[in-house]
């Protein structure tokens, strides 16, 4: 698959169809990759694809608004939906992006690997299972044990929006769709209100407002973030649990119709706040109430900029 | 011949709309209204079909816009007593009845009303409750100034009281106020005098006035209105309980050669609206509408009827009830259905209900008679203002320079009235511009 990818990129560069290509390259540590920008044909050898490519590369398209050239990038299903949203939000023009889709088999959760196989050197995709190498030993592991949670419930591992697609879908991918996608939301909802409050207050208490979640988010493309505003000041200067609540709730509000569950926010949060558990709630409400899923089609109107007279019959 | 002032007679929605449009077209407008406030019949409605828009919500901004327009001169509590002249040059005398309240001083605060000891039947609520002798016609009245009803004021009746004067810190009460005559010169006149409900007690067979739980459509409107005498609680007169079954009788006094041969145009939709409002207010309530033809020929009207049937269980029965009797206070409707399915038996049926609403005919208000007589404007045999060439000149009366809009020239609903009002403004603009050129 990597070969195929490199060939496509080489050709694109050769033809001058793109100015550069955004992909993944080997990281410094094992089991890590890093985003890379390929500008010349001879660099294509650096491109890799593995279950260790968490970054949502659509995040790097924000700057494109001001330029004129074309850019290529490799996307997982979730990232591709980000591209659709960026088009909807007038942040990029679809024709200026060459999208190379990969049928994502799911991304590996490093923490899970670390926990189960300390010192793992390699994790390879072996179809239905992962093959984990620790020193001399090889372990065959059921995928669910190592996948990132969001990948396990992923409904759209490959996008409908691409110019090239690598490889084929595996059967595993196809029936991965699960009724349990929102289980954690339902679990939370089943708690009494005080417990939910206590839970979230505790989570927000930990937040140091480093803004990593915002900075990594593909959807945070505002010219100047509302939280930087001094007129008015939406946040007080303190980082008490309640001020942080304001931050997280407003941010979640801004995710309505935009969050495509790439999970980057949660991955980069140094305080390990379960942010997906917040945004997933938004995602589910929008889906249930307005039959809207972010990133599906460029023509879909975001849920908050349209309405139906029938909405009045809706209740939560 | 270059008088760019216009007289509008009648401060209902048609008169208001005509005044606003004329003023915006650059004419000086004198809007004469008989009662202490503009607003007219629309102010008495709870909601309007087919959108169920709250009537006062959409009317009040127009009233304020009209009254605060620099080119509109409101003459409320006033009547035209004399008029002469011709297109481009009418001379008009207007009688301003004394309010006994100084309009410049009164702030509309209502302190006087609180303190007034005299309670009298409230005409705005069709006498279903009481108001004071010093009063505001309705809470959103424009101008927002008080009026003393001299016929009921204790001071005028018995020579003492003057409590209102005592409590008014603005010193607005003026018992010395007298009638005033205002003389105007205008280039054109628009009549917008509206309608009155027909007095249904003439139809003895329906028992209005005899049977307690038989009321009129307009009374129903005040009862269901949130700002009405019962704060929107639909109380049947006999025991103040909400009804469970209501019958609406259409064409009461309309399409009836004995009274008014014409169709009053709005009653089918009006009854449907009232049935919907009742259904909304009291889920489970059932309404029956006894109709002659179900006239729902306006935009979104059929859809409204369908909604009434489907969502509010309103049943339409094509019948003209012969009589209404009562048993233990419950009205009984005697009727023969005139549409029936194959095999059905034709016979007189009875229906017992909790409340009967008579959708009365609407008749010309008649307050235009002084003007029409003086200027020789033709009326039709019903007393509506005659429009000689309805196809080309739908708002022109038989006298040049005098126009008519709204119900006074024939039964019609609110949108048609505001259309004619704007149309009349256009005709005035045409006349007075041509005159100028």
């Amino acid at each position, binding site marked *: 698959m990597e070969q195929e990818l490199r060939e496509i990129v080489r050709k694109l560069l050769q033809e001058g169809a793109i100015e550069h290509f955004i992909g993944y390259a080997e990281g410094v540590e094992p089991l890590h990759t890093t985003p890379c920008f390929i500008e010349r044909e001879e660099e294509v050898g650096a491109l890799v694809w593995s279950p260790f490519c968490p970054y949502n590369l659509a995040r790097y398209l924000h700057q494109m608004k001001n330029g004129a050239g074309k850019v290529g990038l490799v996307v997982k299903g979730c990232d591709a939906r980000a591209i659709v949203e960026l088009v909807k939000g007038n942040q990029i023009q679809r024709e200026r992006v060459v999208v190379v889709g990969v049928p994502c088999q799911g991304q590996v959760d490093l923490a899970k690997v670390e926990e189960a196989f300390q010192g793992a050197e390699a994790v390879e995709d072996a179809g239905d299972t992962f093959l984990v190498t620790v020193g001399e030993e090889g372990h065959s592991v059921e995928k669910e044990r190592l996948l990132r949670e969001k990948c396990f419930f992923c409904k759209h591992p490959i996008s409908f929006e691409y110019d090239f697609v690598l490889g084929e879908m595996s059967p595993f991918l196809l029936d991965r769709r699960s009724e349990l996608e929102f289980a954690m939301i339902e679990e939370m909802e089943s708690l009494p209100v005080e417990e939910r409050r206590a839970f979230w207050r505790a989570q927000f208490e930990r937040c140091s407002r480093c803004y990593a979640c915002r900075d990594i988010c593909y959807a945070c493309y505002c010219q100047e973030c509302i939280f930087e505003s001094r007129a008015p000041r939406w946040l007080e200067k303190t980082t008490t649990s*309640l001020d942080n609540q*304001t931050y997280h*709730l*407003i941010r979640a509000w801004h995710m309505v119709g935009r969050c495509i569950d790439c999970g980057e926010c949660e991955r980069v949060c140094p305080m390990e706040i379960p942010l997906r558990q917040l945004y997933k*709630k938004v995602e589910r409400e929008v889906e249930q109430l307005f039959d809207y899923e972010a990133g599906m089609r460029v023509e879909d109107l975001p849920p908050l900029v349209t309405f139906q007279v029938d*909405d009045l019959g*809706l209740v939560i | 011949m270059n008088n760019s002032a216009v007289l509008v007679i009648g401060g209902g929605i048609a008169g208001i709309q005509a005044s606003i449009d004329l003023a915006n077209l650059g004419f000086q407008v004198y809007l004469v209204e008989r009662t202490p406030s503009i607003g007219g019949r629309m102010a008495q409605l709870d909601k309007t079909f087919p959108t169920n828009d*709250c009537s006062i919500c959409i009317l009040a*901004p127009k009233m304020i816009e009209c009254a605060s327009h620099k080119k509109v001169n409101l003459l409320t509590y006033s009547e035209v007593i004399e008029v002469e002249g011709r297109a481009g040059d009418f001379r008009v005398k207007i009688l301003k009845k004394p309010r006994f309240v100084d309009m410049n001083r009164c702030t509309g605060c209502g302190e006087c009303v609180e303190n007034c000891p005299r309670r009298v039947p409230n005409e705005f609520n069709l006498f279903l409750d009481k108001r004071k002798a010093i009063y505001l016609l309705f809470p959103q009245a424009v101008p927002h100034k008080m009026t003393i009803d001299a016929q009921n004021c204790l001071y005028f009746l018995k020579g003492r009281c003057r409590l209102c004067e005592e409590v008014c810190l603005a010193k607005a009460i003026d018992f010395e106020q007298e009638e005033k005559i205002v003389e105007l010169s205008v280039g054109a006149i628009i009549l917008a005098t509206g309608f009155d409900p027909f007095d249904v007690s003439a139809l003895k067979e329906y028992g209005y006035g005899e049977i307690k739980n038989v009321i009129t459509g307009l009374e129903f409107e005040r009862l269901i209105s949130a*700002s009405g005498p019962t704060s929107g609680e639909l109380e049947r007169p006999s025991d103040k309980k909400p009804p469970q079954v209501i019958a609406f009788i259409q064409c009461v006094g309309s399409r009836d050669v004995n009274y008014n041969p014409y169709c009053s145009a709005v009653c089918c939709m009006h009854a449907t609206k009232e049935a919907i409002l009742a259904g909304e207010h009291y889920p489970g309530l059932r309404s029956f509408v006894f109709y002659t033809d179900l006239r729902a020929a306006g935009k979104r009207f059929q859809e409204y009827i369908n909604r009434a049937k489907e969502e509010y269980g309103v049943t339409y029965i094509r019948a003209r009830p012969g009589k209404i009797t009562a048993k233990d206070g419950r009205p009984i409707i005697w009727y023969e259905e005139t549409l029936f399915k194959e095999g059905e038996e034709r016979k007189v049926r009875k229906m017992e209900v909790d409340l009967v609403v008579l959708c009365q005919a609407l008749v010309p208000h008649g307050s235009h008679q002084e003007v029409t007589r003086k200027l020789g404007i033709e009326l039709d045999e019903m007393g509506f203002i005659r429009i000689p060439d309805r196809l080309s000149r739908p708002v022109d009366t038989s006298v040049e320079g005098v126009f008519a809009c709204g119900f006074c020239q024939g039964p019609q609903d609110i949108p048609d009235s505001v259309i004619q009002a704007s149309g009349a403004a256009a005709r005035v603009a045409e006349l007075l511009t041509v005159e100028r050129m």
Partner: protein
Amino acid sequence: MALDDKPTILIFACNWCSYAGADLAGVSRLEMPPNCRVVRVMCSARVRPEFVIAALSRGLDGVVILGCHPGDCHYSEGNYYTWRRALLLKGFLEYVGIEPGRFQLRWISASEGARFAQTITEITDTIKALGPNGRRRPQEG
């Protein structure tokens, strides 16, 4: 749950219907609890959900948006947007442990003075029963 004697409730009311309804309640001298503060906006759709979030996080005990009945909007469709926003926001606030009663959307027309008074009374009672919110809430376990 502890009763809160003096909750503070923020009300956003649209100029054309609900604010007028509140005025009518006043003109009709309808008594109601003194805990609400009405802020006038031209349309209920002007109310940023961020206001609601900020107000509740900063410790106000309740926020209520009042708009025209559907179909009555002076701007024809504003209240439909308000409804969508409120629907989502409500579910969301509840999710993070803000009691459902603290944020509400109601329709009040210009003729519904009594309904305004009744709504204010109801809402105040509900919020009193919930006890103080945020800053004023005694530290929890």
